[in-house]
């Protein structure tokens, strides 16, 4: 940040899931998941549908209490904090893309300040500047006074992402943030995540985008962490076949060297649905 805001944004924190276990109605959705997201790094979580990615994230932004296990921010036990306090450290972009009421985009973004403001205290000049900058970063400044229910799904997703940034979190958790976004805005959002300097834990479906955006990737299958490491270590043809049931050719990106997966529809994996 080139200017000096009155209060500095909180330093990024190391996020650690420690033996996280979630069982609902006797079914284990997440099994003893231990995973670390380094301070200021982008950590990806990938895996097939129903592998427990979103459930794990929900424990981090406290929409769900785990059956056992802990979520630690540096060495603080996040789940023991009052909700408002943990929301000042952890912001989330969930898969909820709608709004029940027709707020303006600006009003939605300002809601990101909720955990920082007392009662009905109005946002001050610094908060408004924060909102303006987040909206500019996500290319929604021109939509500020539009009702969110008149926006497209992608525009709304960007407004909600701006809301999460405005929360000034030490950790940003995103559940498939590229949903609804066109390719330009997908790349724009992910490169923004890399630039924020915040600790990021992100669930992504597109493995190529994950390889480009993430410093480290954890792979979930059936609630269990089956691999973790740099994209190059993790995204191998063997793992992709084992976990996703897909045959892929992995090639290095000609410019960045990141592993990129190529799929063929003509040669489907043998013996698989």
């Amino acid at each position, binding site marked *: 940040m080139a200017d000096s805001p009155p209060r500095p944004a909180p330093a990024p924190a190391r996020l650690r899931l420690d033996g996280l276990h979630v069982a609902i109605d006797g079914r284990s959705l997440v099994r003893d998941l231990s995973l670390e997201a380094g301070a200021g790094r982008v950590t990806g979580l990938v895996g097939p549908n129903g592998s427990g990615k979103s459930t794990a994230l929900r424990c981090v*932004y406290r*929409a769900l209490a785990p059956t056992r296990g802990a979520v630690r921010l540096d060495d603080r036990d996040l789940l023991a904090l009052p909700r408002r306090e943990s929301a000042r450290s952890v912001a989330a972009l969930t898969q909820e893309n*709608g709004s029940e009421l027709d707020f303006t985009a600006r009003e939605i973004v300002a809601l990101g300040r*909720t955990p920082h403001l007392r009662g009905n205290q109005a946002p001050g000049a610094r908060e408004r500047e924060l909102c303006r900058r987040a909206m500019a970063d996500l290319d929604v400044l021109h939509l500020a006074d539009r009702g969110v229910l008149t926006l497209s799904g992608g525009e709304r997703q960007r407004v909600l992402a701006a809301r999460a940034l405005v929360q000034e979190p030490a950790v940003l958790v995103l559940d498939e943030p590229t949903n609804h976004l066109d390719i330009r805005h997908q790349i724009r959002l992910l490169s923004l995540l890399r630039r924020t300097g915040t600790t990021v834990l992100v669930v992504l479906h597109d493995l190529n985008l994950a390889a480009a955006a993430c410093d480290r990737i954890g792979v979930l299958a059936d609630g269990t962490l089956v691999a973790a490491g740099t994209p190059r270590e993790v995204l191998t043809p063997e793992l992709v076949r084992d976990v996703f049931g897909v045959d892929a050719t992995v090639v290095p990106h000609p410019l960045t060297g990141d592993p990129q997966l190529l799929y063929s529809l003509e040669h489907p994996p043998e013996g698989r649905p």
Partner: protein
Amino acid sequence: MSSSPPSVGAPPDTAGTAAAGRGLLLPVLVLLAALLASIVLAIGLGSAVVPPADTTRYLWAALTGGTIPADELTRYQIIWQVRTPRVLLAATVGAGLSVVGVAVQALVRNALADPFVLGVSSGASVGAVAVTVFGVFSSFGIHALSAGAFAGALGAAALVYAASLSRAGLTPLRLVLTGVALAYGFQAVMSVLVYLVPDGEATHTVLFWTFGGFGAATWGSLPLVAAIVVLGTLALHRFARSLDAMALGDETAASLGVDLAAVRRALFVLTALMTGAMVAVSGAIGFVGLVMPHLVRILVGARHARVLVLAPLLGAVFVVWADLVARTLAAPRELPLGVVTALVGVPVFVTLMRRHGYLFGGR
């Protein structure tokens, strides 16, 4: 890829956000003035018309202990003992129903919800009919009916609460389903009572509680409901930002630090108390609690910090006028208030909704 370096000289963005706070003062003042004028006018109007100047003089005399000439005593009595409590009750209940409507729509996350969706009003009817039929609460004297209705309302609310509570706390869909289902049950109980005890008075009681009205207003019935509505409204204001966050969905609200279970519990208790107190004195007046929240959102946007302030004021003005129409249009007979609120309100609402392209819950 504009990384938009923060430009030092960028004009601070004052347009929309500052308007949020500033824009509230004017409508509040306008509505307060309108409410005051409506109250004075409505007190003066009726089968015997008293000019506003005289009305003000009588009210002043009553409040300051002044004297009234002997030949004006009857008019003074009508103004002070009959019309004033009635109009004030109309304002109170109009305000309360509107603000509770806002809260209940957020609580059950449903645009069609009104204060009675949680079964409170049908519980109140059962209580009132039980008083008429069995004579319970007779120790409360002339307030026995209201006491029975209030007890019935709170009992119904407690039942709905207990029946809809799940591991996840109060969830919107369960709440509204339980409320609607139990309301059918209460109506059935009420019908059985009326059917088994063929008593004209019981039927009359049922009719009153079904349509609602302020015909029974006295000074005695006013203070309790007014206190509950005012305190309840102030308490609901504290949840304004949480209600905004909840409109984005439970997950997002949780990520913003909103304790959903606690907020829903508080909302339920507050709205049940307020609705019960109102129904006990005025019956179930329909339409106001459903439509005023939408009307206010059309006019000033969705933010609860604004809606929760303006909805009670607009609702008070609306019901004062609706009650005036109800008691003067077909005088000396009184039209049921619910009929008037709907006949006046529906065209206004539809017109505004169409003109402003109002959206609720998506297109």
